[in-house]
């Protein structure tokens, strides 16, 4: 009896909890707005929305390369399975053509779609919640004036029981704080603008902040480095491994141009970010740079001293380019098995002194070679930097077919030893093998560009 009573008590408790949970989880449908897609929007608002969409890098996730912009369907691999981005063109059936502005605003602010379903946090509403109503209005105006594209979003394939969306309410309870960003009165207006753009729509932390086991950003380690699409998103806090520390000026140049002479070119998913930011006014780029640089802290005197040396050695100069842009291979500097490969296959370009963005970056300047995880340098060595479509860009051939896993591991170990004071990387050969085989998935893109060309090499998925 007591057992039964206890059981029914537990059952009741569970039911109450479930009802309470569903109550918390439940979101109403926002009615269809038949006129939404045909409504007129002022051109200035649409233009402002275009800039904001560029800050949000919306096109990158919501477009499959080669398919129409914003028509969704891009497979986003996560530790919990594959999620497909949705069609955010104003197509009434498959896109957001029936979404009222209120529905759009709610999705941005709360991560709930028009039907009332919770959205997976692959859509970074933990950042977008901070976007102001005025900016959401402009974004809405921009998206609703795009070309409607009929494109069904493929089904997600997630591990059980995550396909049950109400569970996301629990995730939200744990990790999501709806709200508005309050300006920090102790900081400049520029800094606050930069913070708003970076933490809100720009969602830098979505890649640059590590995530916990439930896929939420680890707020304690804000900007301490994360990953995206098979690439390491470097630490952009005081843990930054950039040999020449970033400052607001160099960051602004990099974000504006997609390269910096002492840091190299943007590539991987960051290429799309810098490609998109070209729409932004200088003032916004400067604001983002000031804010992000402030989080990197003041570099140590030793780091600054080292940076000065590097700057003197590699900065500003113009090399004589009277023949070609390579340098003769030097004899291997050591009997390390990677040394000979480095000299013959890498040094001719990477030590030629040819300027960025088209020359090979000297590895003394490379964050990739100094980073704790070698993934980026593995990716670039294997797959190279494919040419952008009809646009000037750094181009580097991939060495996958030329070098074995062992050779690449030797080469990278040598480069790590030669160009950095950091500890050796572990298990390099296995990491190269997993990357080559596709077990570890990498999206390969040209440097600095939003690549939307059909069939273009930049869209290669490895």
């Amino acid at each position, binding site marked *: 009896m007591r057992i039964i009573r206890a059981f029914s008590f537990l059952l009741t408790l569970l039911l109450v909890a479930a009802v309470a949970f569903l109550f918390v989880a439940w979101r109403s449908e926002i009615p269809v707005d038949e006129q939404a897609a045909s409504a007129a929007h002022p051109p200035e608002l649409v233009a402002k929305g275009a800039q904001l969409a560029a800050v949000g890098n919306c096109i990158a996730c919501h477009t499959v390369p080669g398919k129409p912009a914003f028509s969704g369907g891009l497979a986003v691999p996560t530790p919990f399975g594959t999620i497909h981005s949705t069609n955010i063109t104003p197509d009434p059936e498959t896109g957001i053509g029936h979404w009222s502005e209120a529905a759009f605003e709610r999705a941005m602010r709360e991560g709930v779609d028009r039907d009332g379903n919770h959205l997976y946090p692959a859509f970074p509403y933990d950042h977008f919640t901070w976007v102001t109503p005025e900016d959401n209005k402009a974004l809405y105006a921009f998206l609703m004036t795009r*070309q409607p594209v009929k494109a069904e979003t493929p089904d997600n394939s997630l591990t059980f029981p995550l396909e049950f969306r109400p569970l996301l309410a629990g995730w939200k309870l744990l990790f999501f704080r709806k709200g508005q960003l309050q300006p920090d009165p102790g900081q400049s207006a520029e800094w606050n603008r930069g913070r708003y753009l970076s933490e809100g729509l720009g969602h830098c932390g979505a890649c640059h902040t590590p995530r916990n086991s439930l896929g939420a950003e680890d707020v304690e380690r804000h900007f301490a480095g994360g990953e995206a699409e098979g690439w390491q998103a470097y630490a952009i806090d005081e843990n930054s491994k950039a040999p020449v520390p970033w400052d607001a000026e160099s960051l602004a140049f990099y974000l504006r141009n997609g390269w910096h002479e002492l840091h190299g070119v943007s590539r991987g998913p960051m290429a799309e970010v810098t490609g998109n930011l070209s729409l932004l006014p200088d003032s916004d780029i400067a604001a983002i740079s000031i804010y992000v640089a402030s989080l990197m802290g003041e570099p140590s005197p030793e780091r600054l001293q080292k940076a000065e040396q590097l700057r003197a050695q590699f900065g500003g100069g113009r090399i*004589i380019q*009277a*023949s070609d842009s390579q340098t003769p291979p030097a004899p291997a500097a050591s009997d390390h098995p990677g040394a000979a490969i480095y000299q013959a296959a890498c040094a001719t370009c990477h030590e030629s002194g040819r300027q960025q963005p088209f020359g090979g970056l000297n590895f003394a300047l490379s964050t990739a070679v100094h980073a704790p995880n070698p993934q980026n340098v593995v990716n670039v060595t294997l797959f190279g930097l494919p040419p952008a479509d*009809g646009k000037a*860009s750094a181009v580097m051939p991939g060495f996958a077919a030329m070098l074995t896993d062992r050779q690449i591991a030797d080469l990278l170990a040598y480069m790590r030893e030669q160009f950095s004071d950091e500890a050796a990387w572990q298990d390099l050969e296995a990491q190269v093998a997993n990357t080559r085989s596709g077990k570890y998935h990498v999206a390969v893109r040209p440097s600095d560009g*939003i690549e939307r060309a059909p069939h*273009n090499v930049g869209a290669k998925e490895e």
Partner: protein
Amino acid sequence: MDMLETGITRRGLMAGTGALVVSFSMGRALAREAAPQPAAPQPATPEPPALPGSLDDERFLDSWIRIDADNAVTVFTGKAELGQGVRTALLQVAAEELETDPKDIELVTADTGRTPNEGFTAGSQSMQNSGTAIRNAAAQVRAILLAEAGRRFGVPPESLKVENRTITAPDGRSVTYGELVSGQMLHVEAQPQSPLKDPGSFRHMGRPMQRVDIPGKVTGQPAYVHDLRLEGMLHARVVRPPSAAAQLSELDTTSIEAMPGVVSVVLDGNFLAVVAEKEFQAINAMRALSAASRWEEKETLPDQNDLPAALQNLEREVGTVAEAGNMPSFTGRIFAATFSRPYQIHGSIGPSCAVAHMKPDGTLDVWSHTQGVFPDRAAISEMLGMPPEKVRVIHMEGSGCYGHNGADDAAADAALIATKLPGRPVRVQWMREQEHSWEPYGPAMLVKVKASLDETGRIANWGYDLWSNTHSTRPGGAPALRGARHKAPPFPASPAKMQISPSGNGDRNANPLYTIANKRVLWHFLPDMPLRVSALRALGAYANVFAIESTMDELAILADADPVEFRLRHLEDPRARDVVQLAAEQFGWSNMPMPRNRGRGFGFARYKNLAAYMAVAVEAEVEPETGRVRIVRAVSAIDSGEVVNPDGIRNQTEGGILQTISWTLYEAVSFDRTRITSTDWSSYPILRFASIPDKVDVHIVGRPGQPFLGTAEAAQGPTAGAVANAVRNATGKRLYDLPLTRDRVRAAIAT
């Protein structure tokens, strides 16, 4: 010039073949290649009758066709295979009139030691010049052989049959060409009229023939000068100054001379090169030499960000290209705009290459992919101070050139180096960065158009002003060669002169073919060339037709007319109307609204206003978010006159369309005030497979019995116009500046 008449026997090579051994004077050829040409004519010999094509210059039949006793047929052309397929087309022409199979003819192309001097292989004129000459010569040779056979058989020549180089009498007796030929039989001057075959009886002309060079090229046979390997050959690389005006200030070559395999470092003024036993040794030594050199540089380049102003500031002279009716005065519906085109490169995939051999007898052989072996010989011999007859320039194929690229310069480099290392052949190949930086560019241009409509919607007034350098600085002398400009003492640049001719130069196609009552077309000539420029496929026609065809569409919009109908409204020439109508029809031209971000565009021109007619319609897709333009399909119609190889015409026209899409969407040379900064394919991107159209169609309007009009350069202007018009149609925005880059399109859409 007469003193040269005693020159060498140019057909010495033919001695001892037992056939027609003909020696004739080099005087005429040498006189014509010497530059600049003398202005004053020699007095008082009566003008000989004009002969068809290049026969007018090389008047003896045996300059073109030789028949050996063993019935072997050799045909000589002064034109060169540039990848345009001329070798195949000339074989078809010769085989047709000689009644033989193309495979039984040996065709000898441009070689100063063997072939007629036909100047440059350029301007889509090979078929007009050489094709016409060979066709007429072949027909006359056939007639001579038939007459001889008739004499031998005692029957009238008309009764003879001829097939596969064998002539048969009605009674069955037969004789081969080889058996008929003797002595000086073919060493006769050609006649103005030839017994050409009737097109109805053609066996080779007018039919697609597989290109004779392709099997070798796809199986790795030696096909290019790059593949020439001579006994004892050395490899050289040049080190060019970092910028055009740079002077060598410091150089220590000791360590370079000690590098493995290095045979010699060549230093002559600012001309710097290294020679080694093996190619990669030469490359490494070149890199070391480059790093060891110090140069004083000067800012001599214009401000790239304000090119229009820079071009207008260079104006020194104005010439009238065309005038008709009254001085244009603009009232009513007016369109006015300024168009521009940047410096663009030829961009051969294979950088320029040459082999030169200074032989013990004091003569120099040069193998080059030059477009003009005779003019190149004149320039090289002038540079070296050698008599031209001691220099032989032999054409070997290079990578496609599309005009005056680095070929002549590389030949000069090889020649200059070879003279310093007599006895061993020297191969020079340019590096990619050198090709991008040092080839002569297609000139930047600026065009201002103003036009107005009358009440009936016809163009009443047309004012057109173009600013441009010359588009041809080809070798006509040593100063046109890079090496000659760098060696000590340097050959100073010869001043460029404006020349207005029917076929045009910078002003090519500046005069619209459309019927316009009052028009004035002016060329504001820029003699100074801050960036070195020369002939790039189509010369000024590319930018001029781009401007004219863009304007035509804007005027059609003003007139509320369909763009195709509006063009036809102003076209009288029936052949022009035919290609316009055919392209429009095959494209499915209509005024139906296109899907959003898609557009259609039309372009037309008659190349040089006197050669091939070409019209093209394209469909473009524009992605407004990125500004990216892709041409989805192109449908064209071309009338090149009498068709020799229809597949050759199609191949050239497809290529012309695709190359022009690349120029028009992507390409511009970049530079700072001192140096060229677009030095490879990463900094100067061109069309890649990712962006090619889904479909490109070429429809040929055949004109049997009409003169050859040439093909290779017909597509550039019309395609540029069609692409710009399609972007206009897709976006509602007119773009005035080439190239129509993503950034420009996106910016235009945003306004």
